[in-house]
């Protein structure tokens, strides 16, 4: 009698793969809007045409541009005027420390942000100056000279004080670019920083109250509490995260989340940090996986040899 097993195997595998393709790749392609990456080019923003002067940038940042009125620059010894909770109560969210802004954000994004915050952040649907809805960050109107030159100077200064790309860790990238709105509880991160270990419960609760007060301010500012990002690496695809960071409006029109303006490299680091929180065992999975596969292939070979020896007498 002809051996039908190869044909049966082909039929079983073909129907299984067809079903898999229909319910996974095909169904998901129909359910979710596909957004193409723009490779963090920020093509809608004007390119910097002037060469910046670091020294003049420093003068502007600490002087006429009044950046330090709201922003701390700890690296340059400029501390915050008020603590994060008080700052958030005033501005909605704690204004970022500018020490590493130069490495985190794309230059043309920084330039546009300084000139017109709501535009660069893509939150003009929320902050329309004509309707009196002012963005909490005041735009820079120039210090009397050529405004484009002045902005180029500021950007050059910020770039000069920032750590290098290599020194910027995934954790730093996440905390600076995302961590003032988003918590990451699995990494012990709150919107006001990493929660320290307290000896006394009273101190721990006092810290929690500060976090809650800060969160109340963000809820008022954003409409809802931005989600905890601990498991976002598993609940969203990498492509989704990357395109969302690039331009939140492209995936979720009308969202209160501003465009972050980070460079492509920084976005990769942010996603790496999210993987460090939500998929901590990926390296172990790869190494255990390889060993298990080798073991199972040997098991299958021995099982096949055993079958052959047993069945020799049966035919």
């Amino acid at each position, binding site marked *: *009698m002809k051996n*039908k*097993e190869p044909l*049966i*195997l082909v039929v*079983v595998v073909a*129907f*299984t793969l*067809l*079903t*898999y393709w*229909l*319910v*996974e790749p*095909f*169904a998901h392609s*129909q*359910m979710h809007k596909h957004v193409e990456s723009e490779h963090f080019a920020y093509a809608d923003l004007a390119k910097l045409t002037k060469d910046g002067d670091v020294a003049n940038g420093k003068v502007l940042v600490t002087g006429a541009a009044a950046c330090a009125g709201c922003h701390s620059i700890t690296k340059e010894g400029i501390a915050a005027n008020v603590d994060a909770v008080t700052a958030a109560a005033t501005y909605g969210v704690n204004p970022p420390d500018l020490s590493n802004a130069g490495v985190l954000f794309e230059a043309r994004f920084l330039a546009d942000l300084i000139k017109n915050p709501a535009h660069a952040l893509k939150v003009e649907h929320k902050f329309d100056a004509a309707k009196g809805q002012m963005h909490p960050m005041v735009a820079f109107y120039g210090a009397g000279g050529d405004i484009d030159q002045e902005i180029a100077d500021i950007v050059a200064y910020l770039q000069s004080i920032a750590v290098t790309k290599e020194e910027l860790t995934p954790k730093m990238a996440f905390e600076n670019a995302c961590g003032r709105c988003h918590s990451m509880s*699995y990494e012990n991160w709150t919107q006001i920083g990493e929660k320290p270990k307290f000896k006394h419960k009273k101190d721990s609760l006092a810290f929690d109250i500060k976090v809650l007060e800060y969160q109340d301010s963000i809820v008022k500012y954003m409409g809802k509490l931005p*989600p905890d990002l*601990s*498991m*976002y690496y*598993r*609940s*969203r*695809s990498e492509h989704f995260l990357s395109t969302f960071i690039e331009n939140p409006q492209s995936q979720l029109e009308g969202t209160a989340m501003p465009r972050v303006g980070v460079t492509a490299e920084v976005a990769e680091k942010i996603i790496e940090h999210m993987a460090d929180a*939500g998929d*901590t*065992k990926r390296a*172990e*999975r*790869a190494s*255990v*996986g390889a060993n*298990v*596969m080798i073991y*199972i*292939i040997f*098991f*299958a*070979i*021995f*099982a*096949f040899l*055993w*079958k052959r*020896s*047993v*069945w020799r*007498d*049966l*035919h």
Partner: protein
Amino acid sequence: MAHFTKATSVKDWLNQRLAVEKIEKVMASEYWIPKNINFLWAMGMILAITFALLLVSGIFLLMYYNPDVNLAFDSVNYTIMREVDFGWLWRHVHGVAASVVFLVIYIHMFTGIYYGSYKKGREMIWLSGMLLFVTFSAEAFSGYMLPWGQMSYWAGMVITNIFSLGGLHMDGLVEWIRGDYVPAQAFLTRFFMLHVFLLPLAIMGLIGLHFAALRIPHVNNQDGEEIDFDAEAKKYLDGDKAGSKVMRFANDFMSKDMMVVGIYLIFFFYLVFYNYGFAMDPVNFDPANGLKTPTHIYPEWYFLWSYEILRPFSINIGLMAFGFAQVIFMLLPWLDRSPNAVPASRRGKFKIWFWLLLVDMIVLTAMGKLPPQGIFSTIGLVAALGFIALWIALPFITMNEKKV
């Protein structure tokens, strides 16, 4: 009282008390299996192995899981996935096995349908198998609630709502099942109990029944041949192993079972380590939130075909169609009126019916996941009607089948 003599060996000691030799013969060495069967007959062993994987991985997960609505999500995603050594491995094994077990169950079921293995004394095998399908479904659903993610919560909401039975508005029944107006602590704790105790117990009992039901009618074969098991067994025991039409379960058939299991485990562990996404829905990695309905709510892939029978109709008709789909497979041995217990390939119209049913259920599965819009709704409706029509047609097309 039986007469006991001084034992000559440990085996003899056990033999006098437990009849181990007799048990070994009945269960293994003189449990006769036809030779003319193919690898599809190894699906039972694959299911047993997969169930064992689920049981063992489940025991490890149970040591750290916390059935509290405030802790459940973190006990899975933080404690088990990050803190516990190899917790991630047990979870991925458990999640993938829960999905793959249904693939194998469906292959096992369609093998039974194709070869007519529910006929002529094998009705109890079919019925106990279908009961296993139902309990496995309940087990899968209750387990899906436990991580308390968005899909757990909303699938729990949707499925328990079904019990209001549409126009009958039995909201009281829904509340009784949930123990609350919405899925909450009472709901989670009772589904936890069902998942880790009552349903596994029922499954183990039913597996015993399923095996017992196989004992008297024996395993079917791929040619629909009626075998005189006593005569063939005698031939085998007299030394004509090659000429006999039967073989021992162990080690003869078991060696083949193990070969198929080996190949299956390569596939299984490939999924566990490299392609687990299909079994662990991304949406369920967002914690449950009763104020935020996910854009798309869909069940796991193995429930999609029956979900799609519910979905394209108005609520009351949909529920009736859904109820029909849940029980109709049970009635297969009586709806098939043909006297032939042979492969579908030799049964004329039944052959067409078999392949149509298979394709129809794959179409239903695909449409069950896709958003119910435009052409997908239409295809879903046609496939749902087709499913019902196929089952109504079955007695008529098998009634006049000629004896082969």
